[in-house]
């Protein structure tokens, strides 16, 4: 699970890094004053703007989180990597078996479906949920009457944990008419005097049918994801200098042009964060499928496989760790991409 925790922590760190980067970009000269003593002037007497007390506070502020980071993220992370080369079962001797567990992962009948489902999850979030969140943010950013109410409505699901969301949507998706809301609703539609040109879908097994349950879960996950992205983006939009829009309006840009040609490029740092968050959300997806059916029958995800093998009664700690390492390696891709982009940006 180390990688999951890492994913959790990553957005925050990335967000910090990127805002810092943006600040440096925008007003480099003024910031120089506050920079720490520079190596370039060795002959000058050591002079620090920081008092001893400041240093102590700084050391504590950096040291404590760093210690937590090391103990709760990096230690488990490396322990997981280590265990992935063993066939440990949670008790007894720990035998080093090299890459054997990785070979087993490769031939594990649920591994390939899990990879595919994670990819579908990513594609869905990237192509549907995230753009929808941005769209909602842009609409809410306009001078809409009752915009606060809408904001609340969209943001409300973000307050709920995905596990709770899973429970809520399970009630909606329950298969029996009279029990599940959606099927009862579809059944009621069918009972209407006017017959609709729709097939009777009131017996759809939303969460049980392996062909559609992934999408049913994605709808539930998007319910939250849209609000999440919406809030992030809205915060970004509010910080865009209104003069830019004014200038664009004076130049005769339509609102569409203003957004795509002016606002969107200015929002670049936020956009990158959104991309990274989307990728990470897709890779760490777990809660809903685990609540629904523990990640089987069409809902296999890498994270669920890790849990079902390493943390369940199965006790295949070595095997589960190997899957976790695979997931970690995949997770690193968007993070590294981001860091490379960030570094390049800083150089320019």
């Amino acid at each position, binding site marked *: 699970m180390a990688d999951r925790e890492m994913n959790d922590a990553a957005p925050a760190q990335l967000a910090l890094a990127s805002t810092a980067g943006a600040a440096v970009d925008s007003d480099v000269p003024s910031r120089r004053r506050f920079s720490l003593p520079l190596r370039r002037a060795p002959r000058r007497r050591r002079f620090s703007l920081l008092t001893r007390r400041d240093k102590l506070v700084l050391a504590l502020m950096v040291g404590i989180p760093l210690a937590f980071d090391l103990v709760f993220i990096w230690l488990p992370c490396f322990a997981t990597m280590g265990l992935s080369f063993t*066939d440990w079962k*949670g*008790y*007894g001797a720990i035998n080093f078996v090299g890459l054997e567990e990785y070979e*087993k992962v490769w*031939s*594990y*009948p*649920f591994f390939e479906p899990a990879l595919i489902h994670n990819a579908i999850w990513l594609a869905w979030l990237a192509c549907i949920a995230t753009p929808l969140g941005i769209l909602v943010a842009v609409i809410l950013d306009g001078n809409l009457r009752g915009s606060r109410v809408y904001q609340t409505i969209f943001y409300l699901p973000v307050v709920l944990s995905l596990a709770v969301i899973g*429970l809520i949507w*399970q009630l909606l*998706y*329950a*298969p*029996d008419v009279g*029990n599940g809301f959606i099927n009862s609703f579809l059944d009621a539609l069918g009972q209407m005097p006017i017959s609709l040109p729709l097939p009777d879908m009131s*017996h759809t*097994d*939303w*969460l*049980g*049918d*392996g062909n559609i*349950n992934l999408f049913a879960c994605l709808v539930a996950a998007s319910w939250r994801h849209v609000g999440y992205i919406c809030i992030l983006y809205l915060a970004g939009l509010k910080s865009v200098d209104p003069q830019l829009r004014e200038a664009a309006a004076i130049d005769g840009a339509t609102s569409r042009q203003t957004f795509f040609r002016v606002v969107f490029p200015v929002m670049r740092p936020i956009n990158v964060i959104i991309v990274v968050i989307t990728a990470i959300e897709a890779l760490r997806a777990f809660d809903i499928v685990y*609540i*629904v*059916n*523990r*990640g*089987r*029958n069409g809902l*296999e995800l890498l994270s*669920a*496989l890790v849990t*079902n*093998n390493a*943390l*369940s*009664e*199965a*006790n*295949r700690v070595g095997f589960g760790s190997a899957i976790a390492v695979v997931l970690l390696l995949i997770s690193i891709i968007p993070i590294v991409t981001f860091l490379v982009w960030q570094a390049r940006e800083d150089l320019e």
Partner: protein
Amino acid sequence: MADNDKSPGLLTGGQVTRREVLKKGLVAGAGLTVLPTVIAACGSTAATAEPTQAPGATPTPVPSQGALSGNVSLGSNLSDAVPKKALQDAIDLFTTANPDVNVKINTVDHSTFQDTITNYLQSTPDDTLTWFSGYRMRAFVSQGLFTPMDDVWANISSNYTDAYKTACTADDGKMYMVPWATYAWTVYYRKDVWADKGYAIPTTLDEMKTLAAKMKADGLVPIGLGDKDGWPAMGHFDIINLRENGYQFHVDLMAGKVKWTDPAVKKVFTVWKDLLPFYESGSAGRVWQDAAKNLVAKRTGMMLQPQVAETFTAAGDADYAQLAMFPWPHHGTEWDAEEALDAPIDGFMISANSPTLAADLANAKALMQHLSTGEAQGLAAKANPANIACANDTDTSGYTDLQKAQVAVLAKAQKLTQFLDRDTKPEFAGPNGMQAFLIDFLQKPDQDLDSFLGKIQTFWDSLD
């Protein structure tokens, strides 16, 4: 409330979540089916806490009641109010008889108990703890994490049938558990609906199919199933395999001694396939509680389940009064006579690593012996009518009709199995394992069974 995770409870008063049961089971997996032969590899190195104690040691070491003093701790996963109270009452009986013994119960939420069981047993467990029979019990015993209690068993064995003895014996031939409560997997139905339509209890598979067809014609769903949690379908496989191929074959299959590609296994799926048209559709998305509600609501004709009493009680006394059950019908094979069925057993064990065990062992054994009495178990069975007591001398006069019916079914059974996920390797039975395979079969019964079973065998082979 993760309702979907609920499975019929044993000790826990119908509130055991599936995971626990799974774990329990798995943990115990071996249980009833314990094969003397099994994977002896690790058995040979078993570090038992009392290597000197020969199996079947002479009775006595357990001191007579009243002469004890000191402490004993009990780690309990009975965290729901009703079974917790029942256990407390049983313990109170013990402390009344042994006023100088201080029994400390550490109750842990049952999910947590199961999730942390490995660490718990390896670090500083309580002297005694609640347990569930089956495969994982053997695995932990072979790691030396439990203390055998053959001496206790020498005193209590007359109070249990052989099926229980087998369930409490590990690979090394020693006894490790005291049974506490059990329940049977049987077919439930509503008496009023059946009387109304003139249905009779089917005694053969053919009669069952005829009945199911009649129910279908009457607008009922013949066989209810909610398999969202993955385990209910396992019970269906178990009973069909037991009837088609017998107890020994089933046990061997669970232990990996027979291959899943064996034609006899294919036969099971072929027989099962013929029944599937009578099954409730959409089972993979329905929790068993909802399937049970359909039985309450007279939409379903019958349902194979460990227990549905909870759902009926919730619906009201009038509905509960209509609930009845019968054992799965005969298949016309030589194995019918075994009357075998799934009946998972929960009980108590003595840990090995408890720091206080050396001082408390005599008390622990006396407590085990006390909990094996019908007097103590009757309290639990009374508190939670979904279960029945295991001890022969339990006073069953207060049993509900359903409990009496369970006793009758179990008394007739020559062989008892725990449950698929308890009788085989835990990693094989899990959600990314047999649960997934069986759902796949239920959804695509017409698939090529040879390649289906080949996939299962390949998966088994990939486990160590």
